[in-house]
């Protein structure tokens, strides 16, 4: 589904990604861990097409297509979703109106007619239940005045609504209380299928107990320096990152 080869990128003349290799297949969950500032969010930004990042080398194929050629909105319409580490507030724009626009834009891209109001509402209710998202929040302005945890939950609610092929969860667990973590994880697990895939960025092994990954990668100084099975997360929790120093050249699995 996603094939990243030797991806390099810089921001403001600073080289952040120094050659990332990663292969994600349909049905898989990959966890990415790594110390603060190692480039995890940057990788998500580059994949989703954030303007201030300049790709300086490498390639990314998404379902066989050159992902980097697409505009940010077309990457989303192709089925790439990012649950942001810091979801933004947009005053005045109602959550529900925003979601309806997003959904219909994506449908239009695939030559599907807009969803009828009734059908849309039905879908909203169904997905709300899935992530136990408060109905009141759907009518409020997008993320405005939402608590940290509510914002994160809203990201997953949107994920459920838009039904992407590949979702990147950037530290969705941070800021969630224990119950919320369980609810959100359950939601994600229910959304998992043979057709989609997830990249879960996290600092904590706890999340990976709920959303069990097929692979764990360690990102360090712009490179994936170690990859392994889910046990790697436990090991990292125990030992920290110090013992991983030497970068490996290929981390493709």
């Amino acid at each position, binding site marked *: 589904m996603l094939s990243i080869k030797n991806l390099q990128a810089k921001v403001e003349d600073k080289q952040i990604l120094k050659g990332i290799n990663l292969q994600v297949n349909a049905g898989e969950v990959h966890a990415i861990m790594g110390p603060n500032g190692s480039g995890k969010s940057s990788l998500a930004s580059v994949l989703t097409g954030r*303007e201030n990042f300049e790709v300086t080398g490498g390639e990314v194929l998404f379902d066989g297509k050159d992902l980097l050629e697409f505009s940010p909105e077309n990457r989303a319409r192709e089925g790439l979703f990012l649950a942001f580490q810091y979801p933004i507030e947009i*005053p*005045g*724009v109602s959550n529900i109106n925003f979601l309806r*626009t997003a959904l219909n834009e994506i449908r239009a891209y695939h030559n599907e007619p807009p969803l009828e109001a009734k059908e849309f509402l039905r879908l909203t209710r169904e997905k709300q239940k899935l992530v136990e998202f408060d109905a009141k929040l759907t009518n409020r302005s997008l993320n405005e005045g939402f608590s940290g945890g509510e914002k994160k939950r809203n990201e997953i609610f949107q994920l459920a609504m*838009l039904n992407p092929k590949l979702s990147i969860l950037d530290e969705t667990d941070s800021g969630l209380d224990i119950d919320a973590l369980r609810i959100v994880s359950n939601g994600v697990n229910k959304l998992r299928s043979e057709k989609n895939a997830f990249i879960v960025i996290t600092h904590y092994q706890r999340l990976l107990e709920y959303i069990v990954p097929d692979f764990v990668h360690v990102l360090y100084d712009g490179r994936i320096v170690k990859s392994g099975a889910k046990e790697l997360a436990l090991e990292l929790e125990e030992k920290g990152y110090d013992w991983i120093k030497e970068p490996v050249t290929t981390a493709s699995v």
Partner: protein
Amino acid sequence: MPAEPVAAGKVFRYSFGSLGQYIIIMANNSADILEEYSDKEYEFGFVTDIEMDIAPRGLNEDTIHFISTKKKEPQWLLDWRLKAYQSFLKQPEPHWQNFELPKIDFQDISYYAAPKSRAKYKDMNEVDPELIATFEKLGIPLSEQKILAGVAVDAVFDSVSVATTFKETLKEQGIIFSSISEAVKEHPELIQKYLGSVVPHSDNIYAALNAAVFSDGSFVYIPKGVRCPMELSTYFRINSENTGQFERTLIIADEGSYVSYLEGCTAPKRDENQMHAAVVELVALENAEIKYSTVQNWYPGDKEGKGGIYNFVTKRGVCRGAHAKISWTQVETGSAITWKYPSVILQGDYSSGEFYSVAVTKNKQIADTGTKMYHIGKGTKSRIISKGISAGEGQNSYRGLVQVGSKAENARNFTQCDSLLIGDRCGAHTFPYIESKNKSATIEHEATTSKIGEDQIFYLNQRGIDTEKAVALIVNGYAKEVLNQLPMEFAVEAQKLLSITLEGSVG
């Protein structure tokens, strides 16, 4: 900031007192994706070819005689015009504004233009087809659709009314809805009583000019206790090259009556700047209510600001009786320079005034707009919601005066004044003036400034929404409180207009 002192007994002059503070907020955002500008041509930039009866350029007493004769006016109106001309000559051009006022050559303007063909039509079939085509192109169906939608249309093409519909239905209820020229002939007693009673001919230089040379406009009278059964609407359009537009609107709501009036405008593309100096006067008697809505979309000029309309309009309403209510709602997207302050004089006890505004400036557009609320009667209330949007190098100023007189016990005002910036070269400025002579008054002022940030746009992009739609979504959300005040049909148009206007303003 240069502020003309308010002379005693002349509080209604076109000036703002030196009291009160002002805040200047300049955008400072280094996001360069927000910088680029579109080449999108003004959508309605076309010129209709209709034979015109045009006055020779220039302004002197002969011009005024020419206009008055053309319109077969009574002597008293000619005299009034001549008096206005004298006060025009005496008035200096204003100097307190927050922008460079271009030098206007009043002698280089033609002050009268009228379609040469018959001025009255019994039905639509008699109307010049090209004129109808023009309205159609503007998306103004002057036809069955509007009638079915319950809108009576008094269409002003350049200066003279050429088509009036729905008059009969209105007549049955005693409502008068006609051109001013017609009203001068048919209801001289109303015109003589109210014309210039809210905006005197000496009010300000542009109002004086208007009084001297006004060509035509709309007149509305709603009798006692009558609720006007439909939205009354006039579409203005500037068409002739170098023809200044001096429309005049007078609306009178007699005791206990209600009327909602819509004004909308677009103008064809022109190279030379055209000045528009309209005057609107509203009179609400005891328990009456007037709702006046405007969507203004005149040609704003090209990217360099060349060729746009100068919109210097004087709009004022007076709540003459107790419990009267006047509400102004405006969506301003056009013009090179917009300079207007729809005001309410709250004379009657417990009367109330409202001002809801969305003003958009982009490229080199300038908007200096706001309101003035004069609390005179006791228990008077006013509410001001102003939403400025600046993009490109647009400059947007809110200027508002809330004045509470010594007899206005328990007067209340609430002002909310928000600015939205798109890009880093535009500006938003807020000049609230508060003058209170009564300690029991409550005056509240809230102001916010926000930016459409790159990260907001990116967030929406990441959900599959392109940048154009993202901006439209944010802007319409921001302006919602004002758009909600517009009649349904108009609100939808206004929302579209905002999106079209800001198309391409974010790279």
